[in-house]
């Protein structure tokens, strides 16, 4: 609780307000997940729940480096990135609880939703698929001469997929304005990084694609912001693709049900001492970039916002079954394809004669 006289100038060209902002987004992310955990325990979350505990720094710091107009595509654990890009806790709560009012009207899970205006494109489950897709969005930016940038997250595991390879290679050849952020959190479900690749570092893949590569401490939100911003600048200026490897750690299981039996003892505890929020808070305080009242105000704001969001949607209904069939394609179904479920008499020849 030291409130020092000396105030060192904020790093990375950030203002004090922005540094506090970073804290807000990380706190919002963590607190939102904590709400989801209790909803999950109460059986209100329809499907699985995926935590980013301890990874809020890399999500928030990297997404914070984007400008309005830029578009990112998250992984399951980039809740923080979605929030920074404008997705609301209300939307996220509704998605997890499959509410009628959710962005996908109850059709898709968790953060699998999108708003290209705000700048996020929710992923699909098959890993790696979003890399080619985001390359296509970057291609659109380039073809239409817009100074916009795409950012796509991949995990240490997803980098083993063919889709990742094809997508990043195509983007590299085309020198597209794309940033590929590898969240190296040590595990893919139960699989440790050493069973995912024999490479020293995931960023060592960059030269093989002829692109820039950089690695940073993903639990340092400012460092994450800094390297990502540099990659975003390069992309925007026509310098092509950068592979950004952010070192972090998945402190919770792959999903809520995962007991992490495969994690060596002590490993999680070690990383608890390297918590991105604690670290950022400590700096805010020690460097005098924020006062206790500032911080308390953020905490209060987060609590209030989540209380409001939850109150608003908790008792909302599931979508009505009658909404299940619409919107598979732009034009209405050609034939009355559903007669076979209804029990109308089938067309009768006798009748016809």
């Amino acid at each position, binding site marked *: 609780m030291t409130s020092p006289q000396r105030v060192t100038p904020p790093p990375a060209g950030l203002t004090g307000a922005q540094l506090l902002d970073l804290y807000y987004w990380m706190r919002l992310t963590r607190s939102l997940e904590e709400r989801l955990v209790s909803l999950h325990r109460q059986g209100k979350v329809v499907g699985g729940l995926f935590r980013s505990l301890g990874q809020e720094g890399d999500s928030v710091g990297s997404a914070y480096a984007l400008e309005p107009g830029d578009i990112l595509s998250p992984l399951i654990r980039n809740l923080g990135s979605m929030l920074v890009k404008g997705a609301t806790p209300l939307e996220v709560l509704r998605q997890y609880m499959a509410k009628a009012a959710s962005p996908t009207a109850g059709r898709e899970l968790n953060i699998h939703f999108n708003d290209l205006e705000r700048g996020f494109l929710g992923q699909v489950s098959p890993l790696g698929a979003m890399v*080619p897709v985001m390359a296509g969005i970057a291609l659109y930016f380039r073809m239409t001469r817009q100074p916009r940038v795409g950012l796509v997250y991949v995990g240490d595991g997803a980098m083993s997929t063919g889709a990742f390879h094809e997508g990043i*290679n195509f983007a590299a050849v085309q020198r597209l304005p794309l940033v590929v952020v590898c969240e190296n959190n040590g595990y893919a479900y139960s699989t440790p990084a050493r069973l995912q690749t024999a490479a020293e570092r995931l960023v060592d893949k960059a030269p093989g694609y002829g692109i820039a590569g950089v690695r940073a401490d993903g639990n340092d939100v400012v460092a994450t912001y800094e390297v990502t911003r540099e990659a975003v600048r390069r992309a925007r200026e026509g310098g092509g693709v950068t592979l950004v490897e952010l070192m972090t750690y998945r402190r919770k299981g792959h999903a809520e049900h995962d007991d992490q039996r495969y994690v060596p003892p002590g490993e999680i505890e070690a990383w608890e001492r390297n918590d991105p929020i604690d670290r950022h808070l400590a700096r805010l305080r020690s460097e005098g970039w924020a006062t206790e009242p500032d911080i308390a105000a953020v905490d209060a704001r987060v609590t209030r916002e989540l209380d409001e969001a939850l109150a608003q949607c908790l008792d909302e209904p599931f979508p009505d079954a009658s909404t299940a069939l619409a919107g598979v394609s732009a*034009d209405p179904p050609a034939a009355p394809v559903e007669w076979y479920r209804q029990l109308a008499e*089938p067309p009768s020849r006798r009748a016809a004669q």
Partner: protein
Amino acid sequence: MTETTYLEAIRQGIWEEMERDDRVFLIGEDIGALGGPFRVTEGMQARFGAERVIDTPISEQAIVGAAAGAAHMGLRPVCEMQFIDFIACAYDMLTNYVATARYRAGLRTPLVVRGPSGGYVRGGPFHSQNPEAAFLHTPGLKIVCPASARDAKGLIKAAIRDEDPVLFLEHKYLYRRVREDLGDGEEILTPIGQARVARSGTDLTIVTWSAMVWKALEAAERLAVEDGLSVEVLDLRSLLPLDEAAIVASVRKTSRVLVAHEDTRTGGAAGEILARINELAFEWLDAPARRVAAHDVPLPYAPTLEDFVLPQTDDLVAACRWLARY
């Protein structure tokens, strides 16, 4: 009055859409300087530039995935699979990502995946496939398979203008073998989802598509001359959506139906069509609906083997006689 080949018709259709809508662009392997192995995109990179005619690495997932991303943003990509067989490499991308995008996430994804399909050309097991059945249980996708030069042009243009993803199956056997006068001036645009009566008849219906339409027409002619049979040939033109109404109307008229396709019999698209006929025209059937299709093997290379495995006009004639006799 000049005649236009099936291949040239597709090329013209793409060209016209490129001219009228600068959101349309092409992406694929060797489609630029080469113009593709069959020259479908001949001259397009010279005319429209390397940014609208993009040569990619050998990466089908990237081609379809990047097209999807660009389509979300409002462009209208046309992807070439060098041979349609290789869409298998982008199966996940096309079925799970592209086809579901509108339903699950409200994303517009107007794109075309086109390429040479089909056999009778000694291409062996990996350059002769008819993949339609693998994509038939893919809500959100359209599957178009023209038989004539006119439809090839009218349907590729409609596919490019469509608001949803279209798998456009060109038959490489037809590329230079069928040609017709496409007139001049008036634009050809063929709505997707409407079958075409390629020959009308009263005794029996052959439901088919793509190259098999021509064998069906041969068979119908022979049956008319040799057996005095009046055979209707229904060219489906698209499988998704399936023109159920046209199939049912024809079957109710003739009461005898044969569904013919080039893909293997088991699991081929004829199954779906026979199911619909059974559901919607059961009482009209005076004989079991029959299928003529390829034998259930990968398509072999040797002419003697390929000719035996793939359905031939004789097979259609024999099956029709069987139905007529029934």
